[in-house]
């Protein structure tokens, strides 16, 4: 009996110590994925790789991009898992990404893989703009639902539209860059001039406009479809509207930061991010994922969203980012309502 007990305790001790040894590798992973999803992502990954602990750094797209660029000479992150492809292109052009072709990358839709060989980043899912529209407040105020981006310039929306600031929000930037692509440069700025008349304020986060529409603080929130579906599921009286001109989108993507202390673990993580299993996990919140054949419809997602996605030029967005933001800021950021 005592021998058995001893044996058991030593086995338990061994199991504990191996578990401890296994969990020794830690990766610092920067992300812009919504906070509530992070635990799920890490758990799914740890089911197959219990030895690698993921330490998340979560912030909005603009903040994470800024952080990464600030740490250019002394990177703190090992992996970026879930950041806008436009931002990753920016990092790539600074020579900050470690090119790596993950095992099984050939299974992905080539649209979702960086064109360099080996690719500097691989896409995960697409993240699509749309409008959150509060039906209760709209009825109170007698406002009709918009069907297009152009509709939003109608005077009835004056003071009732909130959109994210493109300078700090990835969603805001993809709105602006997609309008410039949909309408053309001059028309695009003219459109934003008109829209600016109706904007109540610009927020720093891309999900805030939808949450503010959900709580009735505004009627129209220019945000993204995923956030709208979430708020609707939480019981908010909102409709998710797909504007008829088409919607901008960006990819969420993964990359290894050059100079990581643990390249092997980082590669394992990125290998995981392209698996079918990982893509099924992305599908919980994203209607379009990189792995063909995985996508199932997402609850509360509006119909026709996928068809409305424009043919997005990421390189245009990345390389013109500085100029677009400068122009945007000089037009709208200074026009504060100072009396």
């Amino acid at each position, binding site marked *: 009996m005592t021998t058995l007990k001893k044996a058991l305790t030593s086995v338990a001790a061994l199991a504990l110590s191996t578990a401890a040894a296994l969990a020794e590798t830690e990766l610092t992973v920067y992300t812009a994925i919504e*906070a509530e999803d992070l635990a799920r992502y890490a758990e799914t990954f740890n089911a197959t790789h219990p030895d690698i602990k993921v330490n998340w750094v979560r912030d909005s797209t603009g903040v994470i991009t800024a952080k990464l660029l600030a740490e250019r000479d*002394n990177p703190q992150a090992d992996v970026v898992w879930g950041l806008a492809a436009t931002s990753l292109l920016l990092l790539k052009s600074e020579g900050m990404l470690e090119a790596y072709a993950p095992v099984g990358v050939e299974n992905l839709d080539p649209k979702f893989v960086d064109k360099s060989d080996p690719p500097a980043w691989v896409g995960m899912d697409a993240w699509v703009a749309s409008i959150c529209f509060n039906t209760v407040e709209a009825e109170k105020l007698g406002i009709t639902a918009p069907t297009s981006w152009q509709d939003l310039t109608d005077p009835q929306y004056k003071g009732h539209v909130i959109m994210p600031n493109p300078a700090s929000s990835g969603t805001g930037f993809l709105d602006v860059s997609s309008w410039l692509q949909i309408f053309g440069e001059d028309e695009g700025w003219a459109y934003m001039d008109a829209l600016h008349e109706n904007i109540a304020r610009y927020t*720093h986060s891309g999900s*805030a406009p939808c949450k503010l529409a959900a709580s009735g603080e505004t009627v129209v929130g220019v945000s993204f479809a995923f956030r709208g579906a979430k708020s609707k599921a939480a019981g908010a009286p909102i409709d998710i509207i797909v504007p008829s001109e088409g919607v901008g989108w960006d990819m969420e993507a993964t990359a290894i930061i050059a100079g990581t202390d643990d390249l092997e673990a980082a590669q394992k993580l990125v290998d995981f991010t392209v698996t079918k299993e990982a893509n099924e996990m992305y599908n919980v919140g994203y209607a379009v994922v990189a792995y063909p054949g995985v996508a199932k419809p997402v609850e509360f997602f509006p119909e026709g969203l996928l068809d409305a996605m424009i043919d997005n030029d990421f390189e245009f967005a990345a390389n013109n*980012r500085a100029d677009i933001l400068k122009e945007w800021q000089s037009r709208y950021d200074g026009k504060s*309502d100072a009396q």
Partner: protein
Amino acid sequence: MTAAPDTPDLSTLPPGPKLRPKLSRDDIIMRGSMIIIGLYLVATLVFPLYAMLSKSFSTFTYNLSAYEVQVSDEAGVNFSDPVTFAELDALYGVLDEGDLIAGSDGRLGAAQFFPDFSFRSPVNYRIRNLSPEGRYLIGSDLESSLDWVELDSNTFRRVQLRPEQSFGFGNFQTYFSTPALSNSIKNSVFIATVSTIITVTLAFWFAFALNRSCMRFKGVFRLIAMAPILVPSLLPGIALVYLFGNQGMLKELLFGASIYGPIGIIIGSVFFTFPHAFLIISTALSISDARLYEAATSLRASPWRTFWTVTIPGARYGLVSAAFVVFNLVITDFGLPKVIGGQYNVLAVDIYKQVIGQQNFQMGAVVSVVLVLPAIVAFAIDRFVQSKQVALLSARSVPYEAKPNRKADWVLFGYSCLIGIFIIGMLAVCQFAALVKFWPYDLSFSLNNYDFNRMDGGGWAAYFNSIKMALLTAVIGTAVIFFGAYLVEKSNGFKTGRSIFQMFAMLPMAIPGMVLGLAYIFFFNNPENPLNAIYGTMTILVVCTITHFYTVSHLTASTALQQMDREFESVSSSLKQPTLKLFGRVTVPVCMPAILDISIYMFVNAMTTVSAVVFLYAPATALASIAVLNMDDAGDIAPAAAMGMMIFYTNAVARIIHLIASRGILGRTQAWRQR
């Protein structure tokens, strides 16, 4: 010191060495310690600020002479002679001078230098860097080699030149020529001025009620007045959203005006600066000399006249000092305008936007320099005025005691109640909002908003990080600052060193939190800095917070130490006792009240600080106050209110523990004060 003297030769007396007071071992220890703490201040304050200043002069410009290009004929072969982009620009006049200034992420399309460029033409291009600093992109691929690269015209369209780093005033030029940015100066000064006038007026009457009337519940009012200190400055902003936002409970009171903007910032600023103004004015009113009032009465001056000729002049230093403290607090505050400012740009938020939003660290540094100037001026005036205040009290003053005056007492009581309702109301609204399930559609109560782990911002871990950070700051900060102040006050000689130290200790108060935080990025995130290892750790947060709140604590300690006679040191050295023993046995116990005050001041401020640490926190060290900011940012306003109230309760509990501990400790150490 036991060095044996040489046997003197008495026959021929030498001229004798120049007499210099001998450095005792104590002096050496004290000077050594002072140098160590001085170095701490240099490393955590002076160097980072210097790094920031130099960053503001770091510009990025396109060096068009750094690239050479060759163009082929229509067949795609036979390239022309190499020509630099500078020569092309001179030839075709593509760019204005201002176009050459860029941000660190600037990009300049190469194709625009060829007026008849067509991406469909069969012409080929060759491009190369002439200097090792030259860099350009083909699409998103960085090219920094000096070799020729041949491209077809469709690919050449994707070539983007990158700017080079240089030094100059370019950033300041850009700043002052961009109205979107420079307008903030006007806005900030406007907000700070209006808030100052309102706060000082309100605080004066409140302090007047508490010091010069016989109304009831003075203790309760004093407690309520101090409550705003216990919450981050973002919290009044959140309360205002619930009160006056589009779904606000009292929205009608604004008559259609928007709370998002100057109105919101001003109301919120009045809330969070009120205790500071109240404390200063209250001190000024409490030391008034009763003999002046007796004189006024015997001269038959009306109360009104007495008020203007005795009360106001007596409190004038307090009023001026309070005004500049409030002005400084408002102009440097970041949290409140971030939450409630809407499109109304102010300097502190501009720094955040430049750094976080646009990754433009140089411009962030420029705005910081702009913000430091009014902050330093306001601080300097405040110090000057406070130094005058002390002289007001003479040994023969008779403390003023208020006489009951039914009517005036009731008016002041009513007024104090209004202020109390304003302060408690703001906090109550936040607590109420935090408990509502889904404002305004589902008003049932729930604790959903306390499920911080599901929100963006750091979760419950952030809350516990805050407590850890606040405790570390309180313990280490108090020790370092008190010892530093002791060394300045009590060491012998070494005058220059002491005054330099004193100057360093005063500097943090004048440096806005945003500026300090940004300066820390520049200094500590430089890989060549040996102190780089603390970047991203709890240590840097603690260091930053201690430095940020150094000055007030230092002044508290100095004041307490000045009350102790310097003779103590002389007596102990003549008794051949080491000074450190005296420090531990006498100085610390005597100054215990001040030490306890410093530690609670450090704790509370560490719990509520946002501005400096917003640039410095890492995932593992997210803080509660930052979580409030981030949750509000993401539109999760109710959870932000919930977290804000957690900070309030924590600080309130800390205060109570501090009170109880003070009673206990002071009972044992302060018995000598009783007669």
